[in-house]
């Protein structure tokens, strides 16, 4: 009875492994981005916590006023920079504080990990409730969450133009409550523009501090790339 000689067996095994490795690589290279979760295959897969948009949105061009009352041209001021853009209002008790609170906590975490990283990121909050979102109120509301958040406002026409430019659902005052306590419906998500002046990612109401931190860390260190 002959037994298998170890050398050919080893050689065959190595050849088989090498062939499988090559085949595996080719398979990955042919993939386009998919939304179905797949196990990470080494360093080629990137899983973003934000939702990857099927088609990226251009960095919008609009002009509003900042909390110092000065004109703020969004495209010009944020061009080439990592920018978070959110349309909300200061009388919003739930969604808007939630987004801003998590973003602020993530930025603190990011700065602790990567000193100086905070400076590379713009957070822009557009107050879409001109009756109550005065520059003073916007400023104190934003400062409550963290330093250096840009607050923008304007009249109805300018705010509508900004939302149209950003391709977000238009804010609407909701019927029902009185003139002091009315609510406003608005876009639920935060848009993120990368230095290529495109929004590849947007962040829903389910986004938490850890999700922000994970994506911002990767964006600051490695930049955007598709999943």
């Amino acid at each position, binding site marked *: 009875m002959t037994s298998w000689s170890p050398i050919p067996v080893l050689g065959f095994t190595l050849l088989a492994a090498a062939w499988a490795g090559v085949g595996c690589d080719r398979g990955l290279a042919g993939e386009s981005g998919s939304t179905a979760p797949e196990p990470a295959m080494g360093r080629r897969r990137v899983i973003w916590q934000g939702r990857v948009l099927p088609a990226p949105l251009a960095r919008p061009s609009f002009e509003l006023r900042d909390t110092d009352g000065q004109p703020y041209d969004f495209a010009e001021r944020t061009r080439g920079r990592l920018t978070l853009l959110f349309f909300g209002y*200061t*009388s*919003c*008790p*739930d*969604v*808007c*504080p*939630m987004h801003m*609170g*998590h973003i*602020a*906590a993530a930025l603190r*975490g990011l700065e602790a990990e990567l000193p100086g990283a905070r400076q590379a990121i713009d957070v822009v909050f557009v107050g879409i409730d001109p009756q*109550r979102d005065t520059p003073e*109120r916007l400023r*104190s*509301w934003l400062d*409550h*969450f963290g330093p250096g958040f840009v607050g923008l406002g304007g009249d109805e026409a300018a705010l509508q133009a900004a939302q149209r430019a950003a391709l*977000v*659902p238009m804010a609407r005052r*909701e019927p*029902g*409550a009185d003139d002091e*306590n009315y*609510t406003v*419906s*608005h*876009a*639920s*998500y935060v848009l993120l523009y990368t230095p290529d002046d495109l929004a590849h990612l947007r962040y829903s*109401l*389910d986004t*938490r*501090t*850890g*999700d922000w*931190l994970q994506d911002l860390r990767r964006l600051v260190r490695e930049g955007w790339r598709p999943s």
Partner: protein
Amino acid sequence: MAASAPWALLAWALLLACGPASPGPARLGDLTVHGPVLVVPPGGNAALYLSVHNRGSEADRLIGLESPLGEGGWHRTVREGGRVRMVAAPEGFEVPAGGHLRLSPGGDHGMLTGVRGLPTPGQRVPVALRFARAGELRLEAEVVGQAAGGDGAGYGDHP
């Protein structure tokens, strides 16, 4: 036996005398309320989040909210595609039999309007909840200034 009785009495006395260092869950009948927190940004509108567990065999309903901090009411946050809308829910929220009611960011929540001033994070604010069957439960909600939890845990995210 006789010798250990005084020690047993002492132990009970200590147990009864020492309250918890921080408020534990508040209980009323079959209901247990966990983790009440208040988010109070400047602007006069605060959000209340908590969870209620109902171990009973009949559903209850959370119908009333009162606090010295502001005027209480209930709201739902409704998602419609990419838009979010807040809708008043004056009928309150069901606490299912054997289940949970969760009031959490981006979902159902309590709201206090007309809040004057800005309580500091960590401060405890008296809140009274009224349940249709169980009645009134007074507790303290903790004011939180920022989003809770470094890596994902949100308010009202309790088991």
